[in-house]
């Protein structure tokens, strides 16, 4: 080791070039050797040092990095992601189906996917659609084929289901009374042996693939009219196919990705999932020129009626001037299917944990939705409020765009609504005409933020009060004499049949004949004259030029109004004080318009159309317009029907909520 030691005397040599060192190597071999040795040693030493430094640095950096990511930026809350069910590679599903008088259930692989043992409910044929690749439930329906027309709905539904899906049928109580041959034939075509012979109070279960094999069928005949067939339990196995086989081969676009997601989860939406020719899910309606409501948020209030929501959103997104980014769908409850529909259209949806029950639940849902809307769009001065069971007119936004400035400027306005309670096929004519009304019609309306934030939100009915939100909003404490603007021809159409306060009969009687505007780009003609004072003047002008009808005739008769067009007629009815609607109610009944409570009457004056003539009804003497009555005319008085009937009608009024 001694000779490797650094020799200070040789140090200057280091400065010499290698060339020189080599040149003098013969003369100075010893010195050269030493020099080389020292050089090599130095190199080695430096290398080792650099190596060590590298290792240290790398380790430090790695350590820092670890520490770095560990702190601060970790999500504090443990992100509990629902453990995904391991994708089972199982190719076979065990299916159990039970049918009896009082209970039905369906279990797939031990999981109950349908169970209904409620009394007086769920009668008819229950249908479940499973995805043939995953076994997931895609649709659940019950068709009360004991009642008329339900079998038609079932046929419609079954025709919409894609080929290859697995269908499960089971009957609860009775399902054959109104099961017509068409429906039976459809069931037969699915492979059912029994369906054509299903009869009164038979029990029946069936599992099969649409357009394919039958997995099982069981049937128990009812021995006598007064008794039910024995309960049947069908246990069978279903073979799953591959995912590829279960999906359509649409081009890979953003839209189709949404469509694929949707179609692999749910069934019963018709051509949107058609492989060959799927119906579009993006509509791109014409934009509106000078759209004043482009930045107004739209809140869609929804429950668990996904098919309605689907229909509603289609019409909403097809309306001219719609801005999908401003739409939020509020779903009352953690229902998956409505959310799937929302996602299909690429909209944003918010779910709301149900609070309270029945009407109060709807009311709380409304409150949460409205508050959230104004939170999400803090700049908005207004919000459009829609419900899931409305069709939206093509010029809905055009209508609002032309009239919304009034809501901003006229303090005496409460809302703008797209719905005319009295706008039936035979009583509405003019798409460009607007009215002021004292009631709050709802069903597609615009709410002013200041009204909500300053007045309504702080005192909104609390959950324990079982009030309807719209009834509450119509109360004088809230409305404070303010009025709403409505169109003569409604810009929304209420198609819901199943609702909290809805049933088929009710809908048939009060909503089916409602007029709905289908003309695009209607130019509204009297917007400016809807301001409080201008409207008053307008009414006086109308009454001034109106022809007084012959009050000796029966106002219910068609001949009461002459066969003319474009004229203005007036009639006077008895109305002792402001709340006396005896005659009006009778008149409304015979005219087949809304008669469950009084709607559409600013100051005892009703405006509608009869036979294409403007038709005014003035309540005398309560209405301030009574002075227009010629002294010779006797106001019409119509007797209410006998007392019992009247008593029955009262609760109906309370239930007339427009859900």
């Amino acid at each position: 080791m001694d000779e490797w030691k650094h020799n200070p005397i040789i140090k200057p040599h280091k400065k010499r070039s290698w060339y020189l060192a080599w040149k003098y190597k013969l003369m100075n071999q010893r010195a050269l050797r030493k020099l080389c040795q020292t050089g090599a040693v130095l190199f080695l030493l430096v290398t080792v040092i650099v190596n060590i430094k590298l290792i240290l640095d790398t380790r430090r950096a790695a350590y820092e990095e670890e520490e770095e990511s560990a702190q601060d930026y970790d999500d504090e809350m443990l992100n509990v992601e629902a453990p995904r069910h391991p994708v089972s590679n199982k190719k076979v599903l065990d299916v159990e189906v039970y049918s009896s008088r009082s209970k039905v259930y369906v279990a797939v692989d031990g999981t109950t996917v349908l169970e209904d043992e409620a009394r007086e409910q769920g009668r008819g044929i229950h249908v479940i659609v499973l995805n043939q690749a995953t076994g997931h439930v895609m649709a659940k329906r019950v068709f009360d084929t004991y009642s008329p027309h339900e079998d038609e709905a079932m046929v419609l539904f079954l025709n919409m289901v894609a080929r290859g899906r697995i269908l499960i049928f089971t009957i609860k109580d009775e399902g054959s009374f109104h099961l017509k041959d068409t429906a039976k034939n459809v069931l037969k075509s699915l492979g059912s042996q029994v369906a054509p012979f299903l009869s009164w109070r038979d029990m029946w279960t069936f599992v099969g693939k649409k357009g394919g094999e039958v997995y099982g069928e069981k049937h128990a005949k009812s021995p006598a009219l007064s008794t039910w067939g024995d309960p049947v339990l069908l246990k069978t196995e279903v073979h799953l196919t591959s995912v590829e086989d279960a999906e359509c081969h649409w081009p890979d676009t953003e839209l189709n990705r949404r469509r694929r997601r949707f179609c692999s989860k749910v069934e019963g939406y018709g051509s949107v999932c058609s492989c060959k020719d799927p119906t579009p899910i993006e509509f791109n309606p014409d934009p509106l020129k000078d759209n004043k409501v482009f930045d107004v948020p739209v809140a869609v209030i929804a429950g668990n009626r996904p098919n309605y929501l689907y229909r509603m959103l289609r019409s909403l997104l097809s309306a001219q001037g719609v801005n999908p980014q401003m739409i939020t769908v509020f779903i009352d409850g953690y229902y998956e299917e409505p959310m799937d529909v929302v996602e299909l259209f690429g909209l944003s949806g918010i779910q709301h944990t149900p609070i309270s029950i029945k009407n109060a639940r709807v009311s709380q849902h409304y409150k949460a939705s409205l508050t959230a809307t104004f939170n999400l769009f803090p700049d908005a001065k207004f919000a459009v409020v829609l419900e899931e069971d409305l069709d939206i007119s093509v010029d809905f936004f055009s209508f609002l765009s032309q009239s919304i400035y009034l809501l901003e400027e006229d303090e005496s306005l409460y809302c703008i609504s797209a719905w005319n309670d009295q706008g039936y096929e035979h009583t509405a004519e003019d798409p460009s005409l607007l009215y002021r009304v004292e009631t709050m019609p709802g069903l597609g309306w615009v709410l002013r933020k200041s009204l909500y934030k300053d007045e309504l939100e702080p005192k909104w009915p609390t959950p324990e009060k079982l009030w309807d939100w719209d009834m509450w909003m119509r109360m004088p404490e809230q409305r404070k004499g303010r009025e709403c603007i409505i169109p003569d021809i409604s810009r929304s159409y209420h198609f819901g049949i199943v609702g909290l306060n809805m049933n088929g009969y009710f809908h048939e009687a009060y909503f089916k004949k409602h007029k709905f505007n289908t003309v695009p780009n209607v130019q509204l003609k009297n917007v400016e004259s809807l301001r409080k004072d201008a409207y008053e003047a307008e009414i006086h002008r109308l009454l001034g030029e109106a022809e007084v009808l012959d009050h000796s005739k029966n106002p219910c008769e068609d001949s009461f109004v002459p066969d003319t067009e474009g004229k203005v007629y007036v009639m006077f009815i008895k109305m002792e004080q402001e709340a006396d609607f005896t005659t009006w109610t009778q008149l409304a009944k015979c005219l087949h318009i809304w008669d469950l409570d009084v709607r559409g009457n600013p100051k005892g004056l009703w405006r509608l159309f009869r036979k294409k003539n403007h038709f005014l009804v003035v309540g005398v003497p309560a209405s301030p317009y009574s002075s227009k009555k010629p002294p010779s005319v006797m106001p019409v008085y119509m007797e209410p029907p006998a007392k019992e009937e009247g008593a029955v009608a009262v609760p109906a009024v309370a239930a007339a909520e427009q859900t």
Partner: protein
Amino acid sequence: MQKVNKNVVLAVLSLTSLVFLLFQLYYYKFYLSQKNGTVFSKARGSQSGQDSTRWHVVRKFLGLISSHNIPVYLIDPLILGLIDKDIEQIRSSSDGPSPECKYFCAPRDFTTFALLDKAWKHEVGLFRTAEKMGFQWLKVLNKDPRLDGMDDLSGTEIPLHYIFKLASHAIHLVVFYERSGNFLWHGPLRLKQHMDRKFVPFRKLHFGRYPGAYEKPELLLVSIDDLKVQIPKNPSSFLEEMSHSRFLECRYREARAFFQVYPDDASVDAVEFRKRAKSLLHLAALTLNNLGVKFWLSSGTCLGWYRQCNVIPYSKDVDLGIFIRDYKADIIPAFQKAGLPLKHKFGKVEDSLELSFQGDDDVKLDIFFFYEEDDFIWNGGTQAKSGKKFKYLFPKFTLCWTEFVELKVHVPCETLQYVEANYGPDWKVPVKTWDWKNSPSNVQYNGVWPVDEWDEVIQIY
């Protein structure tokens, strides 16, 4: 022969060692530059490659977002700091090519941009294009705070941050949301369990440690380093705002729990009082903001925010705090001009100042001035009839933004300590009878005003 062999061996050894050393150095440099480019490029002169990488990444990113029509603006504090020095020149200069890369080549790990949420649709297309351009990206989602205050609403999660990484540089895109109170909010950056913690050195991000609140900035389109980019019109005030931008969300969950135990008062009186208190607070905030006086929610109003996210309906007044160093003589006339006459004035600027203004309908606005000492902060109280002085002590605090009754206002960041100092450990229990002289747990008797000063320090109108 022997000696020659030895020489050869030595030469070979030296050569290998040299090669090895060079390799080591190269690797070391490569590793460091990838890790944090700044360190090495600073140390060595050979930075141009690194610098132009940054510029190229920014350029690519700007290309990406403009191809999707997404309006972003630059909020990177480092670059804005540089820009701010030359702001006059940049504003006036035309689009001519710049001689050197001055801003976007500056050494740093990230370039930060802001995006207004409502200005874009959440398109998936952007990320596909980004991937095609070679970007790796990361998205940080979280709950929507605008729905947090609501009973049981669950929206879809919203994107709060995006990070686009290309080569050794990354773009941090902060998503700003508009909130009630007319301000912009960005969320905290929190990684979820499955996320890649080493995607970028998250610690070095300038945004995301806390949520932040900002005014809506005015933007300016400038051309710097041959790139067109939007920046806040006044970078220095933006940077100033950024340093005090921390935002506290109201404790909605705790507030709900509070209302479970003590149901809210929904009587007409309570509703009316809340409405009045809210409009008084809005008016006070407007007046003080116009004067540029920083204030925060104090006493009962602060407790209301902290405990129940609302005005306490029986509190009868609105309380604000202001540091005495922010006191301006204009405060009194400004409030009078706003329609709030002075009701009383206790103390003087040097000691225990307290102002009280009369709002509409019997709601009072109390403004307490806070005096900072070395290890505590205090404000004073005066009893009008006796001239007694009181002192309320608080531990030191800083100010954070929050949203309260549709207003962006300050509250002490250390709210719990503040509220506890004022109301004691039982602040969670509502107390309807409150005596400001005895009830607070931080009150100290502070002597009596000299009688000859009474005219000045006790003014009642």
